[in-house]
């Protein structure tokens, strides 16, 4: 295809991506270097019937005018990145110097909002991903043995947790495990503890979120594995059987090796998806016990009276860097594939 034709074909799509993806990233980066204006204080003389005193008062008009004039705020350099809400260099340094063991240092670190969110995000990703892979493979192997007539309906049902809006899916689970919901109330009866609440304890909240993650992502890995199972050559399976391999052995040594590229694919998709875990935290109203990087950004933008653009920008840039690190192996691999194809 000629360069010129290519350009006209791709132009609309490229323009959309440039203006609404590339430029916002620049805008986020610029925002992260600024911080909100401080309120302008003026000395006012307050005269009562007996005496006069001067007090400091917020000058609303001047503050509003300043905000109007420079909506970005004042320049702060990398200050937002290093403050307590983000990378918190100072606090980390103090914690490092003052704690004796590594465990103590970690528990200090987890109290800082950014590291707390990062820690949850990583734990969530690390636990959900392997579960999703094993469970998905298990379901795929089991569904594959079903008679043809029930396969279709089974796949239909299996797709639901993944297709349904994350916020809604998480809410549905939340209502079931809530103190008065079916699972929550039953657990209270079993443990004979009327105050037992999954929301109140940090480990249980994390478990709930992880269970939601597994529930909503397993369908994806199931579908990919199920499609993969259809491509395993029958001859190899037959040959294994003739050689006396048991059912388990033929799964372990024939089917699983065939699935390995799919495992890599699912792992990468899961890493990307789980890294941006966000909606379940909103649905479970779990933000007191578990936060993620995406949730911090959302909270800066929607949480308080003033929108903290600088703070949200800094967290966004850090998140984008995280995604870039996660993606590097994929990019290198695709680059190699592409060069092989051209050669």
């Amino acid at each position, binding site marked *: 295809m000629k360069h010129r034709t290519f350009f006209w074909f791709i132009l609309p*799509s*490229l323009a959309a991506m440039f203006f609404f993806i590339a*430029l916002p990233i620049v805008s986020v980066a610029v925002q992260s270097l600024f911080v909100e204006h401080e309120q302008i204080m003026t000395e006012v003389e307050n005269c009562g019937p007996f005496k006069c005193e001067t007090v400091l008062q917020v000058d609303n008009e001047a503050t509003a005018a300043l905000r109007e004039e420079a909506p970005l705020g004042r320049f702060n350099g990398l200050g937002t990145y290093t403050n307590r809400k983000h990378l918190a260099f100072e606090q980390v340094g103090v914690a490092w110097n003052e704690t004796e063991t590594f465990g103590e240092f970690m528990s200090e670190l987890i109290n800082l909002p950014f590291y707390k969110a990062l820690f949850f995000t990583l734990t969530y990703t690390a636990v959900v991903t392997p579960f999703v892979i094993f469970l998905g493979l298990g379901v795929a192997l*089991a569904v594959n043995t079903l008679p043809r007539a029930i396969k279709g309906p089974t796949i239909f049902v*299996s797709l639901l947790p993944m297709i349904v809006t994350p916020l809604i899916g998480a809410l549905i689970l939340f*209502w079931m495990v809530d103190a008065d919901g079916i699972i929550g109330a039953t657990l209270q009866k079993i443990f004979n503890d009327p105050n037992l609440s999954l929301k109140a304890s940090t480990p249980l909240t994390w478990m709930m979120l992880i269970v939601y993650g597994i529930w909503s992502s397993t369908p994806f890995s199931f579908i990919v594995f199920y499609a993969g199972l259809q491509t395993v050559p029958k001859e190899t399976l037959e040959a294994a059987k003739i050689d006396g391999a048991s059912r388990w052995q033929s799964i372990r040594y024939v089917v699983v090796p065939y699935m390995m590229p799919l495992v890599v694919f699912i792992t990468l998709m899961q890493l990307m998806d789980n890294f941006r875990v966000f909606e379940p935290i909103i649905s479970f109203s779990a933000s007191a016990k578990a936060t993620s990087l995406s949730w911090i950004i959302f909270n800066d933008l929607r949480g308080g009276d003033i929108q903290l653009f600088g703070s949200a920008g800094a967290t966004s840039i850090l998140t984008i860097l995280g995604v870039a690190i996660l993606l590097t192996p994929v990019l290198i691999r695709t*680059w190699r594939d592409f060069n092989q194809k051209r050669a």
Partner: protein
Amino acid sequence: MSTSVADRRSKGLIWFTTSFVVLWIFIAAGPFLWTLWGSFKVQPDFFSKTDWRNALYGVMTTVQTGSAFTGDGYYGAWVEQEFWRNTINTGIVVFFTVVISLTLGTLGGYALARSGFRYAFWLLMAGLVFRAMPHITLVSGYLLPFFEWNVWGKLSTTIIVLVAINQPFTLWMLHSFFLNIPKDMDESAMVDGCTRFQAFRYVIIPVMWPGVITTGLFSFLLAYNDFAVTAVLLSSENQTMVPRINSFLGTVRETGDVMFAVAAVVSAMIPLFFLVLFFQRQIVSGLTAGAVKG
């Protein structure tokens, strides 16, 4: 698989796999059925402290309304809280997002599939990186400019943003579909004297619909399921269903009408059920097409 393998399968194994599948179906579908059933009850039944079976038989519902089923939750959500407005907004946003993304995406995807130049590869790579970024990171970049230009809160702004966020994914998916359409088709049309665009119009468009429909389904899901963009970029009167359900949770908990939210959740779920029901095959093929999934 061949029958000989099936013959060899022992009773125990059949029992095990069957119960595993049944358990999985129960886990996958149970929560939806439970909520669907419970949405026709009153709050003391659906959130029953005394006995979970109350939600099945509707004991309190019968006491309060005289019948075992009640549409009060739906009435409250749709009529009192005017959930229908949000449904219309979702309809508008989803429709335009899908149509515009597919129009831009087919043109771009076709160009990427037919161009072997290095920059096509780099564009695809950039698309991959853009796709992996959490949407909320971009949203924080929109807000300030949108406030300044006075376009914040409008449906049209949100549609454009969703189209843009959708583009990398649409491009990737359609690009791989176009790769599967033989090059000879449009090239022979060009030998016969068509321009590139004519070849696209008369040769490619008639055969591209399966790919476009599959991609459209995933664009639909992305726009329909979105929370991060719509929650931050839409003003309260323009909200779509998902952010509205979230704001229900705050207001409704205070007034004690959780059932409104339950009814709204079920209402928003129903279209997705039908989507999967009618397009199961396309969704499965899309998911397995590789490097796919919003």
